[in-house]
């Protein structure tokens, strides 16, 4: 245990040193966090009171929603490892047992402020259960539920670290997400209700049923079921951790690699291919593909409203936002040095990255195109393509400036964890504007539509060209700052 404590002490030091150095919490972030904090303080107590009132009379709708939100938050470990300084795999050299290393792993997770906030939020979230008919059993069930959710989140993170487990996980995710997404997309306005009915069959329902059970026998049964779930999740955590320690990334023959999705011609071809190689190692890219796959399923049952097609294009771009706004995030400092050794200007390097981004996002969108053509007709597909082009210019235009101004570290097989929340919110709003404008113009203001859309496209293209030039210069000027932020 002394070894675990010592490592955690240095992990704590290293984490905060890195956190401060990378400037991940900017002044604008602090302001936004304060605003969000204030909102939570003023918004949450009424929700808690409502949940408590409901629980007191045996109803569970609000509490179920609260538990659902907290369970989603516990999936956070998929992100967090990007900024953890000592990787669990690096611990193998020390004379520690697997259980000790697992303790280090769990302890390290709770070092991050986000993990602390989730823990505090979960404990607060369990408070309304005191008003339920069986408060002690309810709170115990909630704690078991959080243990289970945290274990699942961490297990997911471990599975993503192992090449073999990652593929299996992706297949399972696709099998679950695509039909589920299709059901929700097909539901339209009914989607929240359908989601609520799906929630009925998840372990979080066991918490509220334990708290509102008519007798002790039913309450204890729910509690026992949750204990079983938590035990299984802990076993999964232990197993996935030891697998992630022992699994080595294996050399795959090139013929098996799906890397070269599109061979881009010209001298930048190699760089574009490299970007595709890197991007396909990010979960967000696959999530985007799953979303378009799920959406495409609804075409089998008839023609959806064309606006849903335009909306899905907007959604796919927002899912891939980090690829354009943090183009250097996946590059290690030596890799930035390699860019500088190539006989290329900053704008050429950014152009290579932009082309990689465009290919990856358009490939995700291409899944829906044949379906849209089939059910919605060529006009809607054409408008969709124009929207995608305008969004590409907007995301790359903003993204180039953001990439060289505030880069942050990203890791393969992890969600993007870092960067300024403030920048991300502004970026997403601004970059989505051309898409929203095209939706508005095509649906509500179709007079001189071609001229308006062409002007919008030209404007976004112009903004993009300007950003390529300025961001390219800034990259050349601030290369050491970028390297330092990524190290």
């Amino acid at each position, binding site marked *: 245990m002394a070894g675990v404590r010592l490592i955690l002490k240095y992990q704590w030091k290293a984490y905060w040193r890195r956190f401060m150095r990378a400037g991940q919490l900017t002044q604008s972030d602090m302001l936004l966090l304060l605003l969000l904090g204030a909102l939570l303080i003023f918004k949450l107590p009424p929700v808690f009171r409502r949940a408590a009132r409901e629980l007191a009379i045996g109803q569970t709708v609000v509490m179920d929603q609260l538990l659902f939100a907290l369970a989603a938050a516990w999936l956070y470990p998929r992100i967090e490892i990007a900024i953890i300084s000592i990787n669990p795999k690096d611990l193998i050299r020390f004379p520690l047992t697997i259980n000790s290393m697992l303790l280090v792993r769990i302890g390290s997770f709770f070092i991050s402020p986000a993990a602390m906030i989730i823990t505090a939020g979960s404990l607060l979230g369990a408070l309304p259960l005191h008003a339920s008919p069986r408060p002690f059993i309810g709170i115990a069930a909630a704690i078991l539920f959080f243990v289970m959710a945290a274990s699942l989140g961490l297990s997911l993170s471990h599975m993503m670290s192992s090449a073999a487990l990652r593929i299996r996980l992706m297949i399972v995710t696709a099998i679950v997400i695509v039909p589920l997404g299709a059901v929700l997309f097909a539901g339209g306005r009914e989607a929240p209700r359908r989601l609520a009915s799906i929630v009925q069959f998840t372990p979080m329902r066991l918490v509220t049923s334990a708290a509102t059970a008519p007798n002790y026998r039913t309450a204890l049964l729910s509690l026992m079921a949750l204990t079983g779930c938590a035990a299984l999740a802990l076993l999964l955590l232990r197993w996935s951790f030891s697998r992630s320690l022992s699994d080595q*990334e294996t050399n795959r023959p090139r013929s098996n690699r799906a890397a070269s999705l599109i061979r881009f011609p010209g001298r930048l071809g190699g760089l574009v291919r490299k970007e595709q190689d890197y991007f396909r190692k990010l979960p967000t890219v696959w999530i985007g593909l799953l979303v378009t796959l799920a959406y495409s399923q609804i075409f089998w049952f008839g023609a959806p409203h064309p606006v849903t097609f335009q909306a899905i294009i907007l959604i796919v771009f927002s899912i891939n936002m980090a690829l354009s706004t943090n183009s250097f995030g996946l590059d290690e400092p*030596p890799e930035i040095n390699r860019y500088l050794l190539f006989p290329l200007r900053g704008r050429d390097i950014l152009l290579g990255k932009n082309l990689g981004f465009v290919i990856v996002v358009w490939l995700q969108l291409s899944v829906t195109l044949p379906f849209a053509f089939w059910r919605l007709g060529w006009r809607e597909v054409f408008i969709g393509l124009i929207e995608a082009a305008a969004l590409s210019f907007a995301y790359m235009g903003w993204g180039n400036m953001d990439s060289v101004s505030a880069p942050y570290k990203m890791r393969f097989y992890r969600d993007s964890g870092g960067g300024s929340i403030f920048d991300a919110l502004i970026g997403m709003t601004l970059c989505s504007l051309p898409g929203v404008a095209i939706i508005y113009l095509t649906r509500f203001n179709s007079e001189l539509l071609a001229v308006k859309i062409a002007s919008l496209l030209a404007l976004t293209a112009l903004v993009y060209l300007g950003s390529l030039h300025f961001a390219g210069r800034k990259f050349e000027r601030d290369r050491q700052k970028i390297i330092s932020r990524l190290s």
Partner: protein
Amino acid sequence: MEAWDIEARGLTKKFGSFTAVRDLTLRVPRGVIFGFLGPNGSGKSTTVKLLTGLLTPTAGDALIAGEPVTVENVAIRRKIGVLPEDDALFRALTIWEHLEMSGPLYGLKREETESRATQLLRHLDLWQERETYVEQASFGMRKKCALALALLHNPRVLFLDEPFEGIDPGSSRNIKDMLLTLAQKGATIFLTSHILEVVERLVGQYAIIIDGEIVCQQTVEETINAGRTLEDVYFQFAGRPAMEELAWLG
């Protein structure tokens, strides 16, 4: 007037209050192998970075073949080949992909790139490992890959930061022969190394840098004529760290 392929004029680099390189001036003529020696942390790699444009100097100028080295000067980067301290490789690409990607950036046709890459990898005994991802490659393999990248476009000036570190004896011999041939053909080579015997056999001129300042610059011939070895000169300036009695060891 002699043609200097590498020239540094009062080159200074400060990181905050720390001065890594101080008022460094040196000239390397064309076709010379120049050894740059010094203890760890003396400023060797920083100098290489300044001369290749990876770092911007706080003061002074770096010139390659008479042209200033700046980040905007793309033409300079076509003339130089660099094996940097950190190898500067993309961890998720294979060794072959690195070469395949780099050739066209220097204006080489695909066939020419593949032909040169094949020859280089065979010469460096890296052909069998060409499909290895850099992140899975050994230290020596990464070094050889970075060296192949530095040579692929047949540069006029080569900067090699510790080229023999982690390299097996057979490949090391091949590299030495290749460098000598390159210099005979008119290429200029600027190399840093801690292996003094290798430097003594390979270089024509050398400089020793201590705490960011050049303390000695001469030809190997001058050293030999003075009846000394490179090791003698090196220890005269760099000294040796004090020996601790590690009685607990063993």
